[in-house]
């Protein structure tokens, strides 16, 4: 049977078998916890604690400072050691709240206690999601409460739960589908309460039959929820490709999913919504995959936010040999790290440690115009021409070739036989064009 999908895309080595059978292990942090105030799209949060303050698990330590912004809550109890700039994963520095863990894990009032979401109004639910500091945990980090408040809520026909997990190596969403399907369904039901007309679709790629079976069992008896099986292909879990495959509707850069009547949330985000609304627990943990051939023992972990990456590496048994490259996130869109002494944030999905760096092993050679970039581009673009324009700093041509429609999935660069860094040139050009537009 041919499954729903999109045009283009690539099939990189999946690597999921390294960690797909390993249950999620809960990890308690040992060292200090660092909470960057900027770990979402939008304005950084403003710290609401000062050095010396005592904090509890779940306590708000950073307050959203604008419409597109998010709260930050402490994942441990302890003492605020500092509020100062610290280095983030991408090498930039930002204001962070540093908390010394007292190891007691004393929670705020009501933390973890049941709450009946059916007794809450829609506005109350949105407020709880906002207070909990929930953002898109698939990587974008867009504040979820904003997503849940579209201009025309009655126009929403679908709530899509993104369980495609199309990035190679990552298994955190997969493990969560196997281990806590009821929380996913619970979170989805909370979202569906906000949108009376909408149908809930849990979207999973067909390389995860066990997850499909688990989720199908979990949604049996739910008349507004179904499992949608999608073809395994990268970037199936991209917002635009997911919406198109699941609903047949299409959006482009200037449109939001809500314009196509869709709300899209990642598996982890939906679980976070469930915990915030039904368990009175703000976003203070997340599931990560520690994997790659450099790890002694790959593992899926449930981590307290703010924990250092260096500390987590020990959970994977350390490295069996020196990694050539360490990536935060998947190999297609993840970020290459140069220092592990940076904290886990809401959007950290993995530590991928590889003994070989395929990028360094492949020198770019001249473009032979083979057109593979055109064939694989899910955005129906012409990366070869865009790259030519971008490398010549010809931004007008770049824009006229629809360069701003690129969402940097990396398929073209992956497929390029000449090993040219296409996506990199697009990132640079897109940033330049976006900056120019802001100036106007």
């Amino acid at each position: 049977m041919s499954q729903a999908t999109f045009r283009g895309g690539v099939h990189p080595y999946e690597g999921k078998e390294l960690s797909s059978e390993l249950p999620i292990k809960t990890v308690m942090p040992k060292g200090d916890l660092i909470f960057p105030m900027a770990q979402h799209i939008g304005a950084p949060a403003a710290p609401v604690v000062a050095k010396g303050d005592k904090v509890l698990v779940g306590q708000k330590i950073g307050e959203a400072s604008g419409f597109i912004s998010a709260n930050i809550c402490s994942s441990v109890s302890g003492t605020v050691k500092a509020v100062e700039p610290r280095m983030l994963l991408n090498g930039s520095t930002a204001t962070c709240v540093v908390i010394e863990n007292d190891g007691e894990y004393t929670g705020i009032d009501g933390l973890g206690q049941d709450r009946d979401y059916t007794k809450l109004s829609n506005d109350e639910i949105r407020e709880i999601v906002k207070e909990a500091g929930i953002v898109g945990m698939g990587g974008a980090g867009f504040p979820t409460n904003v997503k849940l408040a579209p201009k025309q809520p009655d126009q929403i026909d679908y709530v899509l739960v993104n369980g495609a997990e199309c990035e190679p190596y990552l298994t955190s969403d997969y493990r969560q589908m196997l281990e806590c399907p009821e929380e996913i369904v619970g979170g989805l039901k909370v979202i569906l309460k906000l949108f009376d007309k909408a149908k809930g679709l849990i979207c999973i790629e067909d390389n995860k039959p066990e997850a499909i079976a688990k989720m199908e069992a979990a949604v049996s008896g739910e008349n507004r929820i179904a499992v949608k099986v999608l073809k395994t292909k990268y970037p199936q879990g991209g917002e635009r490709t997911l919406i198109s495959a699941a609903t047949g509707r299409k959006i482009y850069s200037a449109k939001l999913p809500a314009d196509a009547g869709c709300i899209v949330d990642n598996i982890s985000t939906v679980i976070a919504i469930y915990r915030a609304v039904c368990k009175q627990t703000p976003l203070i943990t997340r599931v990560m995959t520690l994997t790659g051939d450099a790890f002694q023992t790959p593992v899926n972990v449930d981590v307290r936010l703010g924990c250092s990456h260096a500390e987590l590496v020990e959970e994977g048994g350390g490295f069996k040999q020196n990694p050539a490259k360490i990536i935060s996130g998947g190999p297609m869109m993840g970020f290459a790290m140069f220092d592990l002494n940076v904290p886990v944030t809401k959007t950290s999905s993995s530590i991928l440690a590889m003994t070989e760096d395929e990028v360094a092993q492949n020198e770019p050679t001249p473009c032979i115009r083979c057109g593979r970039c055109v064939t694989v581009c899910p955005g129906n673009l012409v990366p070869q021409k865009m790259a030519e324009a971008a490398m010549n700093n010809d931004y007008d041509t770049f824009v006229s070739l629809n360069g701003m429609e690129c969402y940097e999935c990396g398929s073209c660069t992956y497929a390029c036989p000449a090993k040219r860094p296409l996506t990199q040139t697009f990132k640079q050009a897109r940033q330049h064009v976006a900056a120019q537009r802001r100036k106007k």
Partner: protein
Amino acid sequence: MSNLLNISSSPHVRDKSSTKSIMWDVFLALMPATIFGIYNFSVRAKDINAVLLIVVCIATCVLTEYIWQKAMKLPLTVSDGSAALTGLLLALNLSSTFPVWMAILGSVFAILIVKQLFGGLGQNFMNPALGARCFLMVSFAGQMTSFTYDGVTGATPLAMIKNGSGDPQLIDMFLGTIGGTIGETSTLALLIGAAYLLYRKIISWKIPVCYIVTFAVFALLFGGHGADMGYLAKELCGGGLILGAFFMATDYVTSPITPKGQIVFGILLGILTGVFRIFGASAEGVSYAIIICNLLVPLIERVTIPVPFGKEGIKDGK
């Protein structure tokens, strides 16, 4: 951690295929036609010239590229196989009795003039092998159009059909046991190679299918033989059509990169080949059709930029 980590922009993984692997795949796909050509023109006719042409063209192309890049202090790229491929394609486009020194001249022209002077791999605006073939055609028309088969010098099947001097058998034209250039005679051998390229997704169906179908329609309409399928089949099997459609028109560098552009390119090729073969002085038209269409590629691409995902039916383009 003390060791240094590699840093680069995503993605961090790469597909296994490379320029080199693609070139060698095309080389491999040409092997059935090459081996048949050697059998047909060297083994059967006991004439070493066809083998010599193949070896000399490949060697000259590779050597020319090597010397040029050495002299110009450019990165050496002969190992990518593109120069060797040009040499093979040129040899397959020559008559089995073609003088070797002229073939050397053609090979140098292909690599030096058509390819390297315009910037090397990926920058040439015209297929180097066909550019050289046309250069040889205008320079040495006699030798280029003199074909010997089984020791008998005669016209190519297409020429016989055109001037009515003979009636070649379709089965000979399909199998290739007939006169012509070294690599073009066996439709069967070429189709085996083409199937391999399609299977390996080295080429897409768009250019060859649009080319051949358009040419067939053109030949039926204007060929003057009405709906004579025998005539049509011979036109398709004869000359350089199959070799050109699958191996030369699909040359990455000199064909459109846009999917719609490839369809337009194929149709134009079909029409031009039809015009040259039916209304032109020569019975052949594939080489000229391809190099003329090569020149139109930038224009074709300009008007065939695809509509981005999600913008179908949106007019303003903003």
